[in-house]
């Protein structure tokens, strides 16, 4: 459990945030640069002193302004992975990894060998930080933080300094961490794709304040997210369980609300939960049941809301039976089809449009997240992009 309430003034900038995570999982702090994300985790770690508020971690009180409690950063047992890794340049990888471990005796919830295996560090142990690639450096930093046996892990845009290929290389490791270890994670990012892949709870930040928060599905529908990511990257997130897998085409049938979606996600087992983002610009609306089309996915629903967008476009939210999707249509089309709230519509989406937007959802709901989960996520990662084994 983590419960955070923080206030901090720095010159003109005022930070005032609160969020809560009941169990293990990933809280994503999402917002543009300068919205106070890094300040928040510096405050949680104890590297900065808040003006007011409290930091609770399970039953421990790490900071409470009213009770004048302020545990020193070195005694908080909070792991921190910095954007720039901050490996100690005068030590090799092994000594970097052992640094935190030696200073937190007694508490052993993750073993050294386990961490090394999880992060693929075995062949790097004798190297020095300057001999590592950016991705390797971040993996070592992750391992070093994990081995200090933290009660909470803070990740400050761990992928920001990496190129696209390195990002794809590191993401599966982060997914494995989330699924295998029961350590809550606070993940700072300004890439919504990372949030989509990793988060169980999203906190949207703007100018030092929380503008929206909740699970990924509900946050994906908020106008506040639209304001941050822009309408091009806008799209409802859906979660559904795999009902069936077609072995020849590799298409998995996903139950979404009252309908189903066919997504490219070969190698995944029936029953696995997936998270899919349907970009608003990829969706097509029909006012009659469509016939004779190559489109594989058709969801039936009712228009919930219509919001005018910039440049003669309209954003249409459709209830597809227990789930909501968003489609962007031109104002002309909207008038021609007489789209209106309450109107019955069919939502069409090409399976290929979903490539790259399908992720294994967090394994939290599945009590046993064994090796099967990790390998499944790896397979999806391969499908999604450039995973280098």
């Amino acid at each position, binding site marked *: 459990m983590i419960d955070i309430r923080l206030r901090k003034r720095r010159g003109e900038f005022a930070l005032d945030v609160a969020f809560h995570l009941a169990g293990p999982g990933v809280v994503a702090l999402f917002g543009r640069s300068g919205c106070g994300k890094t300040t928040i985790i510096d405050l949680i770690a104890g590297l900065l002193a808040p003006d007011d508020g409290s930091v609770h971690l399970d039953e421990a009180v790490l900071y409470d302004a009213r009770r004048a409690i302020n545990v020193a950063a070195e005694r908080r047992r909070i792991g921190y992975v910095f954007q720039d890794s901050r490996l100690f340049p005068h030590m090799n990888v092994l000594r970097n990894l052992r*640094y935190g471990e030696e200073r937190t005796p007694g508490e052993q919830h993750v073993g050294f060998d386990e961490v090394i295996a999880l992060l693929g560090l075995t062949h790097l142990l004798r190297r020095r930080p300057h001999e590592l690639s950016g991705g390797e450096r971040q993996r070592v930093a992750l391992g070093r933080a994990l081995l200090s046996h933290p009660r909470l892990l803070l990740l400050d845009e761990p992928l920001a300094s990496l190129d696209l290929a390195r990002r794809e290389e590191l993401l599966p490791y982060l997914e494995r961490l989330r699924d295998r270890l029961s350590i809550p994670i606070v993940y700072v990012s300004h890439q919504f794709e990372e949030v989509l892949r990793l988060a169980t709870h999203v906190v949207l930040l703007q100018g030092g304040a929380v503008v929206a928060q909740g699970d990924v599905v509900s946050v994906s529908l908020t106008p506040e997210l639209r304001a941050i990511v822009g309408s091009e990257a806008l799209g409802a997130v859906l979660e559904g369980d795999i009902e069936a897998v077609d072995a020849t085409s590799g298409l998995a049938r996903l139950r979404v609300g009252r309908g189903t979606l066919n997504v490219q996600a070969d190698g995944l087992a029936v029953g696995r939960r997936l998270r899919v983002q349907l970009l608003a610009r990829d969706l097509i609306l029909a006012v009659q049941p469509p016939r004779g089309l190559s489109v594989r996915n058709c969801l039936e629903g009712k228009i919930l809301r219509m919001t005018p967008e910039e440049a003669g476009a309209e954003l249409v939210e459709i209830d597809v039976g227990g789930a909501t999707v968003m489609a962007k249509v031109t104002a002309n089309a909207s008038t021609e089809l007489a789209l209106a709230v309450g109107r019955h519509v069919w939502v069409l989406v090409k399976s290929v449009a979903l490539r790259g937007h399908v992720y294994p959802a967090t394994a939290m709901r599945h009590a046993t997240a064994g090796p099967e989960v990790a390998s499944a996520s790896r397979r999806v990662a391969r499908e999604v992009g450039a995973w280098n084994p």
Partner: protein
Amino acid sequence: MLTFAEWDALRLSLSVVLRSVVLSLPFAVAIAWVLARRRFPGRTLFDAFVHLPLVLPPVVVGYLLLVLFGSRGPLGALLERTFGLQLVFTANGAALATAVMSFPIMVRAMRVSLEGVDRGLEDAARTLGAGPLDRFWSITLPLMMPGVLAGLVTAFAAGLGEFGAVITFASNIPGETRTLPLALYTALQTPNGESEAARLALISFSLGLVGLLLSELLARRLRRRLGP
């Protein structure tokens, strides 16, 4: 090749300078840390005070040391009473005068190096459970080591040449306080001492050169260890 008196001056010089750098090392590290990391009222004044020996005539420093550490000076009397340590006219006194004169050089090198240490690394050590002293020994000190070594070597080389403060405070006693520059000065004052003076000058020259080369070599090795 060298006369007994010349060997004596060389041996004495090395011993005096060694004592002087060993004496000033811990203080120099501490003061470099205070100047680089602490903000307090009067810091600028303190900084100026530390650098004073660089701009004062060495004779003035020697004179001040006499006032403070002379047999009747407040500190001198205290040291003599409690430890039986006499500084005036002794090699230890010469070491003290040398230490004071080369102190700013040592502090400066260490401070520059310390200011280059990424404080983010210390923050990282903090989140990994390292307290303040632990952080200093395990992160800060090893990372400022090039500066510590550079400070040591330059102070050593500069200390070999210290003249004014030593002769004022510790006098010019053969075998006790007559270091290389003092021996050289004495030789110049002696009729037919030119060849001896030349040899002493050559020794000083070689020592300085070896010292500086050694420091560069060490710095290079350390830099390679720390990576680009």
